């Protein structure tokens, strides 16, 4: 990777970690209006808990603990896991030793 490419990559990763780890605390909590609205209509009955609702990271919290650190840790873990899975997959699938702008 060229130096500029590496700088871009690191900057992008830091931004993602910052958004998920810190910024998410300030995100609007309105979508929980889904639960609110479901209670007011017939939808509440049709929604079911996910089989993973007992996950230690469920609802972007560590062990269901509400708070800045808990949510931040959950966000950072999510970014790292997503990066590992998607990054690993695309690295495995890539055509090696080639670049599209060669030649």
């Amino acid at each position, binding site marked *: *990777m*060229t130096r500029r*490419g590496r*700088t*871009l*990559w690191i900057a*992008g990763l830091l*931004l*993602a970690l910052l*958004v*998920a780890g810190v*910024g*998410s605390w300030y*995100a*609007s909590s*309105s*979508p929980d*209006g*889904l639960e*609110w*609205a*479901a209670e*007011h*209509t*017939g*939808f509440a009955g*049709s*929604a*079911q*808990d*996910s*089989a*993973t*609702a007992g*996950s230690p990271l469920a*609802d*972007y919290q560590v062990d269901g603990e509400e708070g800045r650190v808990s949510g931040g840790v959950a*966000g950072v*873990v*999510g*970014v*790292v*896991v*997503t*990066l590992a*899975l*998607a*990054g*690993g*997959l*695309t690295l495995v*699938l*890539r*055509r090696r*030793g*080639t*670049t*599209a*702008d*060669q030649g």
Partner: protein
Amino acid sequence: MLPGPPGRESLLQTVCNKVDDVHVPDGFLDVPTSVATGALAAGTVALALRKARTELDDRTAPLAGLTAAFVFAGQMMNFPLPGLPVSGHLIGAVLTAVLVGPWTAVLCMTVVLLVQAVLFADGGLTALGTNVFLMALLAVVVGYGLFRGLVAVLPRTRAGVLTATGIAAFASVPAAALTFVGLFEVGGTVDVPLGTVVAAMAGVHALIAIGEAAITVAVVGAVLAVRPDLVHGAAGLRRGVELQRRPTEPAGALR
């Protein structure tokens, strides 16, 4: 009038809220609909695993992984809609498709949705196929298709690419939302008056789509400014880029 406490407004609000948080939970759609969308999603992902090879090389693969991580983070960042008890968040389908290509975008978006469903209980497990269908498949197909069409007619400039990106990102949101309404009409476990819902959805999702377009244009614009050669959807700009390239950065010198 609808019977009982759920008046029309709250019913519409429900559907709006449900779709803003595009992640469909378990139980909202019946089994046939979940299975059908799941099968479509699985087939597309299988195809994408082969087709993405054409888009991925030593240079672009690292950006693909990063883009997925960025979309995960972006989807956590719910932004409020003025005057409504509703928020929206990035989908990221057009962002990913323009940056790293549509087949790779299908895979990246699927990974994001998989991580959200398995680790964070965000979006149901039996609804995972539906969520992949809506956000990793439909939003990419509609958004990237529109992007390609616009790029073909707009000037081959940075502004042209970003205009196409913004419009495509905007369109992808109501496309996914309205498709969900369609699925709900077919396989929903509760009856929803389709016509009025569609009308109400248009307004709410126009607002969310503005956020989607703004974030997408900002990110694609930033990458275009630093490394335009890495942007899959800006291939038409590459010739100019090559001329500007510094000789100290020979193509292919990656180690």
